[in-house]
């Protein structure tokens, strides 16, 4: 699992699938992360392998995905497969427009937390701080 981050700054890699243009939620969340002292790296990706590579290079503590067009099951499953192959253990969280009925499937495949509509940025900040304790 992750390193002892109690004395260090947490680093989150926020990733948007390049063909999903909805980034309003992401902007707010990233702003809240930065205000809470969390380091944020933001990328777009079209291939999960690119994302895994950046996660490795950046040594991210958490990977945050966004999905608002219905591609959440696809990107989550393809990304988790690549992360597994590369033995990258950073927990993956996902936010956006995600129907409640898909949440169990996302958690089953290994997504650590789903932030659907109605979640506040504070919820994600608390979740990340919870990981570092």
């Amino acid at each position, binding site marked *: 699992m992750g390193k002892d981050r109690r004395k260090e700054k947490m680093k989150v890699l926020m990733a948007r699938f*390049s*063909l999903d243009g909805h980034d309003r939620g992401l*902007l707010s969340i990233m702003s809240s992360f930065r205000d809470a002292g969390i380091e944020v790296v933001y990328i777009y990706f079209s291939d999960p392998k690119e994302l895994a590579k950046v996660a490795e290079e950046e040594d991210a503590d958490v990977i945050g995905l966004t999905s608002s*067009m*219905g*591609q959440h099951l696809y990107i989550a499953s393809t990304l988790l497969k690549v992360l597994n192959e590369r033995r990258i253990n950073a927990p993956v969280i996902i936010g956006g427009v995600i129907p409640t009925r898909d949440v169990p499937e996302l958690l089953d495949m290994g997504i650590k937390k789903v932030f659907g509509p109605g979640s506040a940025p*504070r919820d994600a900040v608390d979740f990340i701080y919870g990981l570092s304790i």
Partner: protein
Amino acid sequence: MFSRKTLDRVNEMMKDWEKEVEEVYVKKLKFGSPQYTSESGIPLNYVYSPEDVKDIEPEIPGAFPYTRGNRALGYQYMPWMIQLLHGYGTGEETRERTKYLIREGMKGYGETPAVLFAVDTPTHCGFDPDSPKARGMVGLGGVNISTLDDIHTLLKDYDLPNTRVADNIRFTCLPFLAMYVVYAEGRGHRPEELNGQSQNGLGNRCLTTNLPAPTPDAQYRLEIELIKYSCQNIKRWNHTNLCGYVFGEMNITPTQELGIVLSKAVDLVEGGIKAGLKPDEFVPRFSSQVHLGMDFFEEIAKLRAWRRMWAKIMKERFGCNDPRSLQYRIHVHTAGSSLTSQQPLNNIARATLQVLACVLGGVQSMHTNSYDEAIGLPSEEAVRTAIRINQIVLHETGIPHVTDPMGGSYYLEFLTNKVEEEAEKVRAEIESKGGYFECIKNGWLRQLLEKQSIKWRQEVDSGERIVVGLNKFKIEEKEEVPAFTIYQPEIEAEITDRLKRWRANRNNTEVKDSLERVKGAMSDYDNVEKAGILMPALIDAARAKCTLGEMMEAIVEVSGGRIYST
């Protein structure tokens, strides 16, 4: 508007009113006197009087500057168009949804069918469905189109000259229009018979969605190219949708939306002139997609101010004489960002208020959101209800019987003037920074959008802004309204398979040669003054059965841009 005597009397009466507020409410009842402001930050009084509108000029509908409406008669003569943006999956599925919507009441002017379709992101950006870049996204949020066959599937049941075909496409408007012209040609129609519109808003789509797009300079040239081609060849085509909607969805204020869109219009009119067109040749064919949010009166004021400002700019700045150049036709898309996924039926109330504001503001056309659109694509029941809101306002309330029913309201006339004043400040600021396209390039507009959307969230989180069901009046949510979804992997496989057959059934030398000619034309088209040389090459490419993605790839190979990852 009022005699000095009347104003003196009003002022006396207002003194009594102020006295009562001060003595009864403030002193006795400890009224806290909150300062309200409009969504755009305009400070509001508790009541308005003739004093606030004493300087306004009397106006009538159908006369310059058209604040009260473009035509002498409004909805008495022609109800608004009920157009719903729709589309998902394959052409067959979208065609069935179109039929359903038309059956329930979607229509253009008169009895003209309207097909206002959304495309998926691979189509927006110009990635064919078999491209690795399109994986997982084919058919989501819109129909996929890459070939003439796909257009046929969508439109085969319609008589094209009598159908309003409006594609809601971001960056591939030119290749799509070339394909549509060739498709219509195959059905025996000349371009001048066609009727509909292009989005032609590459710049604003790139700003608000950050999707892979050509460079801003190339976006500007591509937009001017489409204006020139359609103006000279498809007279009835609305070449450019001046879309403020996408800015509103980033929580830009109503006055900012108006100011930004006008700054864009100025850039495009100047570009059209450089391309050799006279303003009266192409200004009448600008269309619009205005964002309509929850600040009821300010939104009505915005619609009225919009017409007035447009008329003044086109007449005074660009010397337009044709009344059609001065009459801004408004299509509204009610604010998706105002919807909540919590207690989704509340969204019917929101949409109803927005439709009412549109009708009081005298719009020509409307897309009304469905109550389940914060959850996913709308279900049939939800879109039908959205249409019914329009039909109830139209047939049951009597509201459309009188044109500009709010005209002369002290408050609304005051607010219309204020919105005009504030929007003009935004427009002038953008112009002072080099104009709309320059402010895309230098990042100023994007920064403004990001700031506004973060501000909205902070206001919701702090409780300063109340959104019913989201941060107040919450309930324990069960997912009672199911999300409408499609089985995407199956659709993607089917569409990719079709494309494979299309590619196998064409002359590859012709394809290759015509794409080289597109690249050559794009490379020669280095200045808007040369507009008109790219579209013929694209039409040839469409005749050679090139796909949407291949044509876009040829354009972007020359123009640069299109960032996939950062």
